[in-house]
């Protein structure tokens, strides 16, 4: 078997603050195979963005304290890479697409120059070649009239176009892994459909691995092969896309799936998850989800369940997983 693009074991990120300690990420394992699209799904504050940023080592320490047992990327152990070593990896082998393109781009530099910077930095190119590659990169992501768009400043482009510029930057060096943090949240629905389409085509045709971080399960359905559901700093369910959407085991995953409004729904009510996400400084004892769970028992209030395999395709962190075969559920 081929080596995985990313293998991360027991990532922990802590933010100490005056009023207490925020445990943002508590022991997250992530594996991404070559050419695979993995989705990390969770609500705001569950630690999904911190996880993706720590893979790129973009979390400043201090204030944060990061610890990871294993971090292999493309066969290399990057756990102890220094900042200068990481700089050679970022952009070239690992790239990131941010949520808000207006904030990710420099407003006083033209889009073309910002893309060309990547080529100048990572490839031995002169400015002319870099400019030519930039136009090619823009063309790749479906920007009309790429040569003249490259001369525009970010504010002159529409939201969808800006997001494409970010795509172009991420795909510029054809990295092994792209981390996309809520790539379409700030876009309109029809534009979101365009950008997702583009992202999927590029990912499949260039065999790039993708980690898609999102709060919206419906975005995932079109892209991902494998889904990690995160809640309050821990992975609560890990499953193949099909498995998760057809037979979710964790009550939280079920709640998330039900809360997506569907066109096929007939009833007028909306299924809801009661309560809210716990405050990161005041996480409950036992299973973090138990105050919001309909099936919680005494055991759930005391002990945190382990992430255990249910079948080949899914692992779940729950004492009473749902949607099980009858015999298993009895035990």
């Amino acid at each position, binding site marked *: 078997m081929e080596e995985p693009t990313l293998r991360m074991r027991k990532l922990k990120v802590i933010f100490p603050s005056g009023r207490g300690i925020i445990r943002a990420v508590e022991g997250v394992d992530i594996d991404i195979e070559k050419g695979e699209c993995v989705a990390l799904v969770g*609500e*705001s504050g569950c630690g999904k963005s911190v996880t993706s940023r720590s893979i790129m080592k973009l979390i400043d320490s201090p204030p944060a304290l990061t610890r990871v047992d294993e971090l292999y990327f493309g066969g290399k152990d990057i756990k102890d890479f220094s900042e200068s070593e990481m700089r050679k990896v970022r952009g070239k082998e690992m790239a990131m697409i941010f949520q808000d393109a207006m904030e990710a781009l420099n407003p006083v530099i033209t889009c073309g120059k910002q893309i060309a910077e990547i080529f100048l930095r990572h490839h031995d190119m002169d400015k002319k070649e870099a400019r030519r590659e930039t136009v090619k990169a823009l063309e790749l992501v479906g920007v*009309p009239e790429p040569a003249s768009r490259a001369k525009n400043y970010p504010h002159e482009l*529409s939201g*969808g*176009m800006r997001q494409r510029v970010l795509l172009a930057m991420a795909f510029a060096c054809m990295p092994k892994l792209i981390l996309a943090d809520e790539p379409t949240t700030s876009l*309109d*629905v*029809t*534009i*979101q*459909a*365009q950008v997702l*389409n583009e992202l999927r085509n590029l990912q499949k045709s260039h065999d790039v691995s993708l980690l898609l971080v999102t*709060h*919206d*399960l*419906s*975005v995932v*359905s*079109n892209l991902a092969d494998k889904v990690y559901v995160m809640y309050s700093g821990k992975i609560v369910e890990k499953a193949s*896309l*099909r498995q998760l*959407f*057809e037979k979710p085991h964790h009550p939280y995953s079920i*709640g*998330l*799936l*039900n*809360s*997506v*409004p*569907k*066109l*096929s*729904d*007939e*009833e*007028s*009510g*909306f*299924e*809801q*998850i*009661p309560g*809210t*996400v716990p405050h990161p400084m005041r996480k409950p004892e036992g299973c973090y989800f138990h105050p919001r769970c309909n099936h919680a028992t005494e055991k759930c209030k005391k002990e945190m369940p382990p992430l255990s395999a249910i079948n080949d395709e899914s692992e779940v962190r729950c004492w009473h997983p749902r949607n099980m075969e009858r015999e298993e559920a009895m035990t």
Partner: protein
Amino acid sequence: MNKDPIITLENITVDFPVKGGIPFLPKKRLQAVSDVSFSVFPGETFGIVGESGCGKSTLANTMLGIVKPSVGEVTFKGKKLFDLSRKEFKSIRRDMQMIFQDPYSSLNPRFTVFQVIAEPMIISKSATEEEMVERVGELLELVGLSKDDMHRHPSDFSGGQQQRIAIARSIILNPDFLVCDEPVAALDVSVHAQILNLLQDIQERMDITYVLISHNLAMVKNICDRIVVMYLGKVMESGRSEHIFDHAKHPYTHALLSAVLDTNVEEERELVVLKGDIPSPIDPPKGCRFYQRCPYAMQGCRTIPVPQVEIDSGHHVACHYVNGFPEGDKPEDYDKRIEQAHEEANV
């Protein structure tokens, strides 16, 4: 529905002058809403759907008398909103309230929850201090918070709870008419359902008429009785919920429906991906405003103005492709045309 409408909009056009331009020449004007008419009846939920820049928020502001239309008339409960005196307007404003998209920026961070919720009562001078405390407590419980939360500040609450506070504030004066401008767009997915259920619950209890503004058709589907789909300031299609969802005719409605992502992995759905971006509403085309992105655009679409044609009782569509051009060229069956277009595309 033979009741009198609670609010009627007639030929509303709103435009704003654009900053800059050449001095001494007439300023360019941005047409945010163009010739929109509809009525909302008591007790119903009326949906306005469209992407950003389609004028749905401007329309909401016009309904509440915040933005004055350049052409057209808003009639609320039989009174012309923009002909009222200041005093009359103030008293009628009590019956109409609004919920905004971002709960945090719509709540004053320096006020306590009590001050936030009671503010409309303080302004209308309609109650004593004790009455207010009691009423605020009742409302907090109605929206799923507790009485003791009254003395905390908005920043102590999560986004969903803040939206509940905003809802409590909007219903304290017992309004008849409530405009919800993207009430859940800024919230987490798992909280969406809570807020929407709460809104429905309140509607049943207090008999309020809602106008719900959203960009997500799936969200609107099961709450709204009637829906208008807007694009670049114009109404593209309007009708009862089942018209829009089961018998959508306009190509833009189709695109919007297809852009709603589903969690169904079994079924491969046909995706209509529109090309291009939403064009600028400055100097819009004379004909159909959607023609640049329309997959079925024809020669005349650019120049010939599109009328609203009623194709079923209460179901209006503004599209040359569906209705045929006004003169000559008889309207054909829509489905046949789509088939033809597909065949042509395949050849």
